[in-house]
């Protein structure tokens, strides 16, 4: 008899519905599978037959054919075991033909018949809802993750016998979203870190606030031990909490990467990723034969922090060029092109020279050649994408000892950041942008227009500092953010001069 079961597959972060078609007929006993299958899918044959046997269901000696449609899409992964098993049971008449009506089934089988967790449940369930599916049967471990999607029934199952029982009796209650501790709009997630922990470094703190407000990429330069890493780690605490939509986007990526767990079925705080500098190009960008999302995608809507930037291999840093510009990353493989979102705030930290003591020449012994080689690791195009560049000077003992009470807390800074972001959102609503950092030169002309006085001021700066057009635009974008933080609709001289101070330190580090 012929029967079908619906399941889902992942391509990039998108999901597709797959029909598992099973036919059992008289003839030479065999079990064959077709439909452009990867080797792990082909192995499902053994897992399914043993799992069924151990669940007490014996396969009769028949000619069993399984087809996964559409047949022109390569099937990968371990999630087809359960739908194949259910399809066979339907085909053999163990289950009713209409028992899986409006249902999506997904999961890996162990030889004992247990159901194991799979990756990418979130996008699959969401796609299923769009396709009009009413109930999803998923591995128990993926249940909470699946239940994040509203208005669709989710059943978590531990063992194939549970599935059989359910499909026969349809008694088991479906889990729905409201039972789960889910997205909490009001509460800001707790952080262990807080900006009030940091003494001194007011310039840097201020620049971080500006960067967070306009989603500008940031580069911190300073000697070791000045607090670069400490400050970077606290950036998520001043970013606005994730919106529900953003949370869903981020969770989807984590789901595909298999990083959601029962304890954390939904990502509710902004990601902060600080990969070690030995990270490979593939790990950063996303890699593998079937690419998994890389660190840059996992940092989507959050912060990607690269500490000791020049220690990263040059090719690794160069990978950032395209995603920083386009907010997503394309990975081409022979199995197709995968697009992962990568809209993150890039924060780099580096020493000013290999020994780290420059500009304190009493301690720095680096030759200009060494310094140049060190800085040469970061290519110009990447530096170009960084709007704010700030130096963290060494702390004096006095500053170090100061009490932390006087320091501003993250919550206070966050309020200002959020207010500035609101202004931007309102202003850019019609052009579909969110932040000042995303402005194109055309937008800059429109939204960052200067008054007569300010224009003259910029003209002087432009001539005096020999700015490039790009540097000029960067200054305007950052000045726009500073003005937004001040709640000013017009960019003033004081905003511009602050923005000029955050200009790339190219002058110092790349001059003769």
């Amino acid at each position, binding site marked *: 008899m012929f029967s079908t079961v619906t399941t889902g597959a992942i391509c990039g972060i998108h999901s597709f519905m797959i029909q598992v078609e099973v036919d059992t007929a008289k003839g030479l006993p065999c079990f064959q599978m077709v439909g452009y299958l990867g080797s792990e899918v082909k192995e499902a044959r053994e897992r399914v037959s043993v799992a069924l046997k151990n669940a007490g269901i014996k396969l009769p000696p028949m000619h069993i054919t399984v087809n996964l449609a559409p047949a022109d899409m390569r099937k990968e992964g371990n999630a087809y075991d359960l739908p194949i098993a259910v399809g066979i049971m339907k085909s053999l008449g163990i289950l009713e033909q209409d028992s899986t009506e409006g249902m999506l089934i997904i999961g890996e089988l162990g030889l004992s018949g247990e159901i194991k967790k799979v990756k990418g449940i979130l996008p699959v369930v969401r796609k299923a809802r769009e396709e009009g599916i009413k109930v999803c049967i998923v591995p128990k471990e993926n249940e909470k993750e699946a239940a994040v999607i509203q208005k669709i029934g989710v059943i978590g199952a531990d063992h194939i016998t549970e599935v059989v029982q359910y499909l026969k009796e349809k008694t088991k209650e479906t889990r729905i979203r409201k039972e789960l501790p889910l997205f909490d709009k009001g509460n800001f997630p707790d952080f262990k870190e807080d900006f009030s922990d940091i003494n001194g470094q*007011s*310039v840097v703190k201020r620049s971080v606030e500006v960067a967070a407000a306009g989603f500008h990429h940031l580069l911190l330069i300073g000697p070791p031990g000045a607090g670069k890493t400490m400050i970077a780690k606290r950036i998520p605490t001043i970013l606005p909490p994730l919106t529900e939509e953003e949370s869903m986007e981020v969770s989807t990526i984590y789901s595909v990467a298999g990083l959601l767990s029962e304890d954390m079925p939904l990502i509710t705080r902004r990601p902060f990723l600080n990969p070690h500098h030995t990270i490979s190009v593939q790990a950063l960008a996303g890699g593998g034969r079937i690419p998994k999302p890389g660190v840059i995608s996992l940092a989507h809507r959050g912060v990607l922090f690269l500490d000791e930037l020049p220690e990263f291999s040059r090719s690794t840093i160069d990978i950032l060029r395209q995603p920083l510009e386009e907010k997503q990353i394309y990975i081409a493989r022979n199995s197709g092109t995968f697009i992962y979102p990568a809209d993150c705030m890039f924060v780099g930290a580096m020493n000013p020279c290999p020994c780290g003591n420059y500009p304190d020449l009493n301690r720095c012994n680096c030759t*200009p050649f060494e310094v140049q080689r060190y800085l040469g690791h970061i290519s110009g195009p990447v530096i170009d994408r960084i709007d704010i560049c*700030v130096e963290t000077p060494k702390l004096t003992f006095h500053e170090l000892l100061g009490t932390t009470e006087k320091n501003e807390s993250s919550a206070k800074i966050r309020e200002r950041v959020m207010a500035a972001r609101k202004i931007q959102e309102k202003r850019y609503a019609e052009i579909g942008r969110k932040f000042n950092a995303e402005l194109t030169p055309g937008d800059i002309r429109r939204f960052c227009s200067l008054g007569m006085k300010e224009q003259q001021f910029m003209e002087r700066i432009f001539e005096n500092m020999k700015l490039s057009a790009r540097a000029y635009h960067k200054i305007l974008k950052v000045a726009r953010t500073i003005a937004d933080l001040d709640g000013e609709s017009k960019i003033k001289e004081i*905003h511009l001069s602050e923005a000029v*101070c955050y200009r790339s330190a190219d*002058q*110092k580090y790349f001059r003769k």
Partner: protein
Amino acid sequence: MEKQNTDEQVMYAYWFHNMKLAGNKKMWEISERIGSPGQIYDCDPQRLGQILTDKQLKYLENSKSMWDLEKEWEKLEEKKIRFLPYFHRDYPEYLREIPDPPWGIYLKGKLPDKRAPRAAIVGARQCSEYGRNMAVRLGRILGENGIPVISGMARGIDGISQRETLEAGGESLAVLGCGVDICYPLENRDLYNRLEIQGGILSEYPPGTQPIARNFPPRNRIISGLCDVLIVVEAKEKSGTLITVDMALEQGKEVLALPGRMTDALSRGCNNLIRQGAGILTSPEDVFQFLPGSKEKNAKHSLIDETDTDAAIRTEEERELYRVLDYMPKSLERIWSEYNRDNISMQRLMQMLLELYMRGAVGQAGGSYYKK
């Protein structure tokens, strides 16, 4: 018996010098024992054999067939390089007076006037902002007064002072440790190009010689040899610059050192020199007094001149801010805490500093470091 005229002798000298078969001392020995370059060329191998090893001798003989005297000379002229062997009338008199003078020198551009008193400025490659500032001022003062500046076109003090001298309309000569057709360091390309027109580039090494480390100490004797006064701007306790000082003392030249703070590693070499008896340089007159015929010169600027700056500072607030600054760059953070922290916002401070920077009163070292 001179059978060729000088021009031809120069061609023979170029051949001999280019063979690089012996060091400077050996070349002198050969010409003392054999005679003019023409005579060396025609010399009986047996006689040369007394000075050279068999291998060198063979090499020299072989080279004669590979080296077309006139063609090679034309090639050199095409590159606008002059070769001045010791007997050439344009060979600098200054060099004739030093121990171990170069047998021959290569020159691009021109030498300073034969009788012009000149100074050499040397110092650390990795200089501090203070050193940079002083090198700029010294270079400018000497340039304005028409005193040629000899230096090594290296990174840091050398290049900075030479660039500034040219900027002020003066003349400068760079002595390289590589061939004159090679710009080393490459980042001083602009200076190199300008020196070709407005000054000169000199080397005792044949064109094409790469900048290898062992060539540099010997070239220092030429720098000190070509000057009347050697000025040391910044040097660490163990610095290559001190080699130049030793050479200068050996050659009987005047050495002036720029004092610095005792806590600054980059001034320690200079301070040591002063303790050992070098002259102390605190005003341009200190240089002029050692330059014959330039006593009447007077500098428009002093080394700690701040008249330009004074004009740029307009308000009392700015003056107060300026007082906080130093020649060593200070971070914005420190300026803020040393300045009136409670009464001024960080933003306002940034604005004031930028304004002062644009008026030329303060310098910026990187994004958030400022200096006088």
